[in-house]
């Protein structure tokens, strides 16, 4: 993607810190994401990848540091203005997080009806269009989320995330818990629905196959810091022992799993 034409990064994190009690999860994270760029943050389980995304969206409040979206510091905005910032966001949650009290189409149309005050009839048409983009038929729209398989739930979650035509989409482990084929279907959908539409994307994953496929840029979070940052094509020759251990999925290396306790 052409990231030089726009000088203001779409998302800019500067020295973001977040602790839970004595545990420091983010220890000074600095990251710029250009408009239309797809950045994937890799890292082991429990390294604070989700915390990073939730801090940007405002579900969690960072302890310190600056988080800018389109040059606007979102850590300083009031709660009412926060909702207008969130309009720019879409998110696919790890477990899809569909509202199980609503049928599938209402899940997809939720943002349209809530934030854009679209009529139910109109919103339903848009929902069915969006479901078609992720390869689901209109009949699926009438089902309850609990009637769907994990892969279909993820696709509905993706449809919900893109339905409001967001400028930025966050993916929290988009392929976790899916079989390899369905995971690749999701990867393709992310490419066709997000990258090709010029939507900025920030994903977190520990699935390297997925990371290679959807990322323009890969960065690795380890012990609260981003220890490596480079083009997706370079991830296999990073020269960084931590990244190499992670990419090759080896138990031997500088990253020691804490199995004691």
């Amino acid at each position, binding site marked *: 993607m052409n990231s030089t034409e726009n000088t203001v990064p779409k998302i800019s994190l500067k020295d973001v810190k977040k602790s839970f009690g004595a545990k420091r999860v983010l220890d000074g994270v600095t990251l710029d994401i250009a408009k239309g760029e797809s950045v994937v943050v890799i890292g082991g389980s429990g390294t604070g990848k989700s915390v990073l995304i939730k801090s940007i969206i405002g579900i969690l409040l960072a302890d310190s540091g600056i988080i800018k979206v389109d040059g606007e510091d979102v850590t300083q905005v009031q709660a009412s203005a926060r909702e207008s910032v969130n309009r720019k966001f879409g998110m696919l949650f790890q477990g899809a997080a569909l509202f199980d009290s609503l049928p599938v189409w209402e899940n997809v149309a939720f943002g349209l009806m*809530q934030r854009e005050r679209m009529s139910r009839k109109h919103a339903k048409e848009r929902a069915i269009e969006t479901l078609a983009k992720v390869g689901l038929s209109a009949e699926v729209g009438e089902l309850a989320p609990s009637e769907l398989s994990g892969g279909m739930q993820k696709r509905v979650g993706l449809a919900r995330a893109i339905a409001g035509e967001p400028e930025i989409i966050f993916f929290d482990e988009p392929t976790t818990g899916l079989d390899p084929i369905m995971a690749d279907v999701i990867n393709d959908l992310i490419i066709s629905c997000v990258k090709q539409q010029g939507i900025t994307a920030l994903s977190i994953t520990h699935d390297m196959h997925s990371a290679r496929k959807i990322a323009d840029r890969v960065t690795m979070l380890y012990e609260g810091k981003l220890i490596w940052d480079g083009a997706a094509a370079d991830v296999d020759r990073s020269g960084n022992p931590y990244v190499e251990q992670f990419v090759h999925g080896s138990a031997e290396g500088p990253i020691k799993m804490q199995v004691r306790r």
Partner: protein
Amino acid sequence: MNFLALIGRVVLAFLGHIGRLTLFTGTALSHCVRPPIYPRLIGRQMIDIGYYSLPVVGLTAIFSGMVLALQSYTGFARFAAGSENAVANVVVVSLTRELGPVLAGLMVAGRIGASMAAEIGTMRVTEQLDALTTLSTNPYKYLVVPRLIAGTLMLPLLVFIADIIGIFGGFVVSVYKLGFNPAAYISNTYDFMQPLDVISGLVKAGVFGFIIALMGCYSGYHSKGGAQGVGAATTNAVVSSSILILTFNYIITELFFGT
């Protein structure tokens, strides 16, 4: 030293709980008066809390009325003959002032408070609450406010119906089992019934409805840690709302009738 630390930890946890609950209540109330409101969701909650609780509350009321008539008759028979007038009096006063709102409140706390805590708790642990936020929808407005409004409005209505059903239960036992004169029983009931008795009962019901919805939502909202956390939230909702109902029952009685 360890023992002191334990006391300190318990006190701090308790104070933290009260602080969180106060903040939660304040936030929820402030969202009650600010748009947008969701009439559709309020309506659904009203049906859930009001209509679907009718059988449970109705059964509780009719048996309470029946047993009241029976107990007061057999109890009074020890002291004086001709206690028929007193039975109608006892039934109407105790039902409208006390048993109607308290029993209905406790039954609804078990039925509705638990389901609210479980539903919102599950939404919390499956990230559905976070999903609401990312879709620019405030969880307080979307989930908490409709429940608070519906609870506060529907409980008085339920208790009003429970009062009627309970008095009818007392009437049935008095007339068909104890052989009272039906006309005399009805006129006794009318003579003894004071508007303030009924009104105080309905005010209690409104407060109880608020407490049930508040504790259900609060427990669910702050639940964490999967199925176990949701289970704990459900228990917490029922236990804390029951205790608060009994506490506020005394406080409101004191306000209305305390001298």
